[in-house]
């Protein structure tokens, strides 16, 4: 299985955001020990990792489960190998002072910053309508507009922006998107069907290394956080530690990275109902546990 002769082939792993704790296990992964030469490519807002995997400009990449299903329906053969977040960490945060009871209440007035193209945004629109709330583009991880306006709510990673807001002295209430029944795997390691077919050994080795990496990062995130902080100095080291701790319950729910056909089938059903994909996408084609 290990490359017997000389140097292993280089693999590129494309991230869809800057180095931060959601990628901790990838930076902690002992790739060399598994006979691999992996270059991690940090991303930014809108890095099209799913297309990069399909186009072969990265052998491996980080995607979200819904992205992957939509890509498959468009003929881009991408396969999930390892799901970091077993529960979707996406949510909507609002000022606690508004005393809102549910996501539906958030949509009754004020402003909501949200990526409208995302499936859960459209599920919300379908369920509650956006007639009473002003929907504006998501400012990414920036919370300055949120801090200035009490009636401003925004999409967030539940273990990230809410912490920033609390540090800035604003008490927040967070509504996980999973509350409305939408819970795709998030921060999913994926590869192309062609890559998986031509070199299944490499995919297996990557998954093994990543699993080791996540185990190590969950047990002791400190050394990896220091390294990621050097690559992404805009996030301070205390925030790295805090987020790494807060994300644990989303990651460690059982066997690290493992996925089920039922969860994929549920997601496919939801996306088909939105009209994004045909119902014919097969759950078992979407992923491979290794």
């Amino acid at each position, binding site marked *: 299985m290990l490359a017997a002769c000389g140097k292993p082939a280089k693999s590129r792993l494309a991230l869809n955001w800057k180095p931060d704790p959601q990628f901790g296990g990838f930076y902690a992964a002992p790739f060399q020990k598994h006979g691999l030469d992996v270059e991690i490519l940090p991303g930014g807002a*809108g890095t*099209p990792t*799913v*297309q990069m995997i*399909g*186009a072969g400009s990265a052998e491996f990449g980080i995607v979200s489960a819904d*992205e992957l299903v*939509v*890509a498959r329906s*468009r*003929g*881009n053969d991408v396969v999930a190998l390892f799901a970091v977040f077993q529960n979707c960490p996406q949510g909507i945060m609002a000022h606690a002072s508004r005393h809102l009871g549910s996501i539906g209440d958030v949509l009754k007035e004020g*402003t909501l910053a949200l*990526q*409208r*193209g*995302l499936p859960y945004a459209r599920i919300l629109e379908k369920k509650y309508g956006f007639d009473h709330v*002003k*929907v*504006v*583009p998501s*400012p990414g991880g*920036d919370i*300055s*507009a949120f801090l*200035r306006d009490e009636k401003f709510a925004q999409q967030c990673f539940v273990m990230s922006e809410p912490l920033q807001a609390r540090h800035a002295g604003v008490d927040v209430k967070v509504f996980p998107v999973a509350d409305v029944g939408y819970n795709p795997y998030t921060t999913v390691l994926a590869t192309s069907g062609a890559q998986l077919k031509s070199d299944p050994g490499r995919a297996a080795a990557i998954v093994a290394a990543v699993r080791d990496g996540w185990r190590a990062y969950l047990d002791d995130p400190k050394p990896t956080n220091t390294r990621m902080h050097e690559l992404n100095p805009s996030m301070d080291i205390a925030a790295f530690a805090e987020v790494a701790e807060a994300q644990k319950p989303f990651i460690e729910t059982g066997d690290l990275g493992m996925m089920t056909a039922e969860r994929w089938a549920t997601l496919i059903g939801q996306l088909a109902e939105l009209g*994004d994909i045909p119902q014919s996408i097969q759950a078992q084609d979407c992923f491979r546990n290794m």
Partner: protein
Amino acid sequence: MRKFLPPLIPFVVITLALEWMVRSGLVPSYLVPAPSAVLRALLDNREELAAAMTKTSAAALIGFALSTLAGVAIAVLLSSSRAIQRALYPYAVFFQTVPIIAIAPLLVIWFGYGMKTVVASAFIVSIFPVIANTLTGLLSTDPALRDLFRLYGASPAITLVKLRFPAALPQILTGLRVASGLAVIGAIVGEFIGGEGLGSVVDIARTQQRVDKVFAAVLLASALGLALFGLINLISALTLRRWHASEQLQ
């Protein structure tokens, strides 16, 4: 017909080649959409796209108009004295180098979500070529003609209106041509952050991996840029036809 044929040929050739490449599977459709798919996206989403196009057009036009007025005014001020020019021109250059994508989030903080932010973005990226070209034009008046005006005792104001400004028109219009395209780009970038319009359509379609719709919106943005460019050319033809070589040869 003879005028339209030359640009039509590359269009047809490229469109057909692209269609063939996608249909034959040479290029996957999730990376580059077939022209026929873009056309379908245009038709299927015509109401949404028309509404977005109206918003983007309005914002780009207002931004462009503002940068024309302000750009020409600033250039007149700069051309009035060497000292003022030395003191202020470097700051005008600032507008050319400002990375709009970096300051666009600040525009939202200053102007709020919506139209004002989009107009401001269009204005910022399109004003510099107007200033630079107008200034060059105002400073390169024929010295002999300037002497003539002085000899007859014309005031600086009269010299500006009757001589320097008309003589600078070809350069001013060149500046406007460059600025018109930039205003459209500025509007779209502003819309990424401020919401609404074609920029918002592109943003949403990209999230949904709808490359066909992204291209449909981009196509409309180009059409808007072309229309503005055509408008400037029309003004140029009308004002320069009688005396400037650039409009007489055709």
